[in-house]
């Protein structure tokens, strides 16, 4: 039985189990490497990043392999979290009230479950973009094997790959901002795995209710 969503001693709630945290950091570290090397090839003004990371040749060689690792991590996330990421009626109301969320008026928000609608968007955005990045990345990996009469594959890949990357960068920036700066305590949930009861009630009241309902005798 899944352990996450368990009430822990000292007013803590388990949010992410070890394998969830490991998956998160596999995706995160590989993504950051992909982001840095990708941006280096994306614009001459950032090519120095590739030099700093060991040179253009090394970056070119490792980027696709990091991409494979990243893709596998995202697929693992899909298997763990997809069920909890389904859109609900509350999510529609959440988007309707997103202005309040942006102004930190969280008491005016419809109660989110384990994930709020914004987090769901992050998840599905990354999921679909990863598929696109993998497919186009495979073409960019071996352009010399694409025959001349299939060159439209290369022409498509050079546009879709950076475009999909840019979409993920937008999601990624907001993700970092929310989880490191705006919602204090969220970062700890992917490090030690737990959040405070207050955090759970404040940001994921629906989820908290579920847990309390399930574990009838919270351990002290």
């Amino acid at each position, binding site marked *: 039985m899944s352990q996450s969503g368990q009430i822990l001693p000292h007013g803590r709630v388990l949010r992410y189990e070890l394998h969830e945290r490991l998956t998160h950091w596999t995706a995160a570290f590989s993504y950051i490497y992909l982001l840095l090397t990708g941006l280096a090839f994306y*614009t*001459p003004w950032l090519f120095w990043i590739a030099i700093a990371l060991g040179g253009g040749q090394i970056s070119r060689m490792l980027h696709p392999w990091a991409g494979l690792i990243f893709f596998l991590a995202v697929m693992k996330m899909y298997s763990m979290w997809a069920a909890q990421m389904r859109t609900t009626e509350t999510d529609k109301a959440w988007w309707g009230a997103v202005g309040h969320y942006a102004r930190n008026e969280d008491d005016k928000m419809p109660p989110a479950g384990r994930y709020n609608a914004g987090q769901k968007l992050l998840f599905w955005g990354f999921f679909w973009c990863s598929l696109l990045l993998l497919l186009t990345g495979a073409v960019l990996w071996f*352009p*010399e094997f694409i025959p001349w009469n299939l060159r439209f594959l290369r022409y498509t890949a050079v546009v879709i790959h950076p475009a999909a990357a*840019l979409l993920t960068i937008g999601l990624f920036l907001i993700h970092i901002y929310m989880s490191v700066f705006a*919602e204090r305590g969220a970062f700890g949930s992917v490090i030690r795995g737990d959040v405070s009861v207050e955090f759970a009630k404040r940001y994921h009241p629906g989820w908290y209710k579920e847990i309390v309902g399930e574990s009838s005798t919270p351990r002290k």
Partner: protein
Amino acid sequence: MSQETLRIQKISGHAGTVAGEGTQREYTICKLIDTTTCIGCKACEVACMEWNDLPFGETIFGNTYQTMPETRWNYWNLILFNEHEREDGSLMWLMRKNQCMHCADPGCLAACPSDGAIVQYTNGIVDFQQANCIGCGYCITGCPFDIPKLNPQTKRVFKCTLCTDRVGEGLEPACIKSCPTGCLHFGSKDDMLDLAEKRAKQLRDHSNYPNAGVYDPKGVGGTSVVYVLHDAANPELYGGLPKDPHIPWSVKLWKGPLKWLGNVAMVGGLIGLFVHYLRFGPKDRDEEEMKAETKS
């Protein structure tokens, strides 16, 4: 070679200015290939390999003269043999010396992300600098002529240099030197175009080739390699020479609007988030904390 930095007018993947940009030069150089007098002897292929000291690769045998289907990383100059049946049923053997066209507006260079892996000299030569090449193959996608080829061992891309080392010393390219029929010429672009037009006119007026003409495609800004063709209306007959070559529009989209939109969005996003933090701060500043902060 000593003046090299000054003579470079375009650099791939380069942020900032280019040393030789806008410097004046009297003429750009040009290679003229008169396909109508090529006999397919392959002397130019051999000369190219000898001068550039390229290792020989395997050939194929398919009952034709075409012992290699296309240029390779170590085979920069290839005669394409094309059998063409004319409307009256007679056979024509079209031979075209295929190599880098040294475009004025090179797609390879536009696509390349690596600083200084591809340069264009003020004399018009587009040259790959393998030391700076990262092997991404973007140039393969950028080139409308299918010219750059990857060396699978070293992961660097190679192609015809137009014998930039010879030209720099005032010599003509090795292929020109070897041609026995005189179908290859080398000189300034103006002189070569002049010669080419004269030859095309001769073909039209005296040799019953009403479509004879010069191939110097404007879509890539003109090239430093120009052809005289018997049938300039159908360059595809000559082993797929594109009629209207240009840098693929998706490559332009990728290197142009997508880049600027992306850069603006990324910088704008960072600034936006920072300002949001200054304005609203973290979400969980509850009453207690606010009070504590105002007191201190």
